[in-house]
């Protein structure tokens, strides 16, 4: 069966050039980057090159990059690290209602330990109100953690302004940039962020490798204890091949980001326009917001997103709805609820996320299968008929 993949926000394939760069570090140059001998030194050199490549992608200095196992570890490290270094439970953290679980669930864990957390709401376009952010800051606020781009909507938060607010109030600022790194330009200096999480497999590096940017001079406690790797800050023998892959992917992203973004945005807009034309009553979620160029999230009223997802998968089109729970079943999206969608509309929403390898033929395929699938679902949907009758 012809399979078309429009779920690049979930994960991306490893770029062939990335895989090529990694391969020598499995068997030929297998050294431990912490070893003193030549074999180890070669691994060390590869790791340090990768550190420079990752730093270059976000305008950081190499020594400000710590390699981790991915976005979740980076978020845990940043948030727990800042709060614990600041003395823990009587402190206050500010975040938003649309964060990824890797941030939300860390905040909930902090709350159980007594730390206060404020969840700043977003408007119907998925943007936080800066006024509200200023209002909730307190003398004991030690961290603002706000994602750069949202995984479900693609909405981008105004990090410059948030960074400025944080700096004025002398509060550390962390951003989860897992969905923006490699898709839109990031400059940690311009954005005034102190900590930034990124994940390799979202931009054509393998799964299981990520990084945390920590601005020089930031006080945070380490998450893991062990050997002296990464200056003792993130112990554990370095995943050399993964790190090399992350570096190579960062380098490719830095060079091709502008072209990729332009090309992918055109395809995304064509998909969006085509679906709006072909599917009656469809709407785009957070359409008016600044969004990552590859993401669009649409409501198809009267349709269960879960059934639509399965129907499309059986026809060969991969996309996504909400977040999956441990059994793999779809749960109502907290993000769509946070932008004010009633439950039935949140359930009727579907995310399409494009990537570097998406072709015009992929978009044509999606435009040929989605409208028919929606029509088929609606025919059997009691709610859609009722809605249609009520309106006529």
């Amino acid at each position, binding site marked *: 069966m012809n399979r078309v993949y429009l779920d690049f926000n979930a994960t991306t394939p490893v770029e062939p050039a990335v895989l090529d760069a990694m391969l020598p570090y499995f068997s030929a140059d297998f050294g431990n980057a912490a070893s003193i001998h030549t074999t180890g030194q070669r691994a060390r050199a590869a790791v340090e090159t990768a550190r420079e490549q990752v730093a270059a992608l976000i305008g950081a200095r190499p020594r400000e990059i710590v390699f981790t196992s991915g976005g979740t570890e980076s978020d845990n490290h940043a948030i727990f690290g800042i709060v614990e270094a600041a003395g823990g439970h009587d402190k206050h953290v500010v975040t938003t209602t649309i964060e990824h679980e890797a941030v939300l669930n860390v905040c909930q864990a902090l709350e159980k330990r007594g730390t206060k957390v404020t969840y700043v709401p977003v408007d119907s376009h998925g943007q936080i109100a800066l006024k509200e952010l200023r209002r909730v800051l307190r003398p004991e606020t030690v961290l603002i953690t706000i994602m750069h781009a949202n995984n479900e909507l693609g909405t981008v938060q105004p990090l410059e302004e948030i960074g400025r607010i944080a700096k004025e109030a002398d509060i550390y600022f962390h951003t989860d940039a897992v969905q923006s790194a490699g898709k839109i330009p990031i400059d940690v200096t311009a954005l005034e962020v102190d900590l930034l999480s990124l994940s390799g497999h979202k931009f054509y590096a393998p799964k299981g490798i990520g990084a945390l940017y920590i601005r020089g001079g930031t006080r945070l406690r380490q998450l893991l204890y062990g050997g002296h790797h990464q200056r003792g800050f993130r112990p554990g023998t370095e995943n050399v091949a993964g790190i090399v892959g992350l570096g190579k992917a960062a380098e490719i992203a830095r060079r091709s980001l502008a072209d990729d973004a332009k090309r992918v945005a055109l395809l995304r807009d064509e998909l969006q326009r085509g679906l709006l034309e072909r599917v009656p009553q469809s709407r785009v979620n957070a359409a008016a917001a600044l969004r990552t160029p590859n993401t669009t999230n649409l409501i198809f009223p009267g349709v269960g997103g879960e059934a639509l997802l399965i129907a499309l998968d059986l*026809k060969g089109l991969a996309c996504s709805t909400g977040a999956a729970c441990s059994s793999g079943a779809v749960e109502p999206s907290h993000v769509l609820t946070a932008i004010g969608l009633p439950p039935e509309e949140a359930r009727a929403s579907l995310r399409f996320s494009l990537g570097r390898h998406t072709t015009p033929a992929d978009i044509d395929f999606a435009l040929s299968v989605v409208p028919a699938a929606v029509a088929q679902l609606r025919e059997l949907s009691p709610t859609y008929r009722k809605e249609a009758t009520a309106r006529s």
Partner: protein
Amino acid sequence: MSMNASIEFDTLPERPEAQRGLVAIAMSGGVDSSAVAALLQQQGHAVVGLTMQLWNHRRLPELQGDGPVQHRCCSLDDVYDAKSVAQHLNFPHYVVNFEEQFEARVVRPFVEQYLAGRTPIACTNCNTDVKFEPLLRMARQIGAERLATGHYARIRRNEESGRWELLRARDDSKDQSYFLWGLSQEQLSRSDFPLGELTKQEVRELARGANLPVAEKPESMELCFVPTGNYVQFIHAYSKERGIPLQNSSGEIVNEAGDVIGRHNGVHGFTIGQRKGLGFAAGKALYVLSIDPEKNRVIVGEDDVLRKTNCELEEVNWVSVEKPPASLRVFAKIRHKHEPAPATIEPLDSNRARVNFDAPQRAITPGQAAVFYDGDRVLGGGWIR
């Protein structure tokens, strides 16, 4: 192994209209629905597996106990089992979330019925209002013509009457037709029960023959959403979570004359005909005769008082026949393990009916169903008021 081949070709009902097109299988992760998948695939059907996520077992943590929840419906283990069967047989499989519908149409009514002094059957509600309603609809929405399940019962089209008939399973010891009386003609017309002609032993053999990873899995006997099997504890925990007021739990146990002869800890802990757990020793054997939730009373008496010859039904559904214009002679069954007894059904206005048994029946219980049979055919059924 050789047995397997004979099962698939000799004993399945001829259903030519079901031989083409995609069939969805409701997969619980147990051996029965897994065997359905193997069977339909061997018959050349394109199949897709759907496993319902019905209840979040992390809810009501006080019911969790210490160890992991194992071998219960809709636990993660069962989802993984269903998935591994689909992987083994190489067909697409999805977990679909029906937690909201399950709570609204099964769990909450279950709790409310117990609190009202009745003894509900959650499985019937789940069949009528979840499996063969939103799940069947979803199956059709994703392109499947029919939904197959692991139920032990049979469906047959009566060419003369034009109706879809529901029949008891060939294996009487496994027959589940008692739980399926609520299905409409539309629901029956789109459902397949491929195990209806097989014995449990044959189903096991089929699963072994297909090397299914669940071939030796033990059967689940408990209600799927009550992981401990202790439903009284579940009712307490759920009511607390949802803010449903529990009657001042302690109340009186009285005899027919109204004399107080003991105390109980909540009417939802009792069912009609129950002897054990009355909490006191009596000279003669005493049984629960009725439950009065308003006065928070349990009324007890001797066995002979427990026998009654009639009851009234509500929400009656006629299955293999249309609603009869006049009384009808049937065999009626008033609980799953009840021997069908000769009776006359008297249809009343709207969808109510009266059942008059030829001989008194023991412990006719409000909340259970009376299901009417004519031989193997399920004529209809209704809830006992």
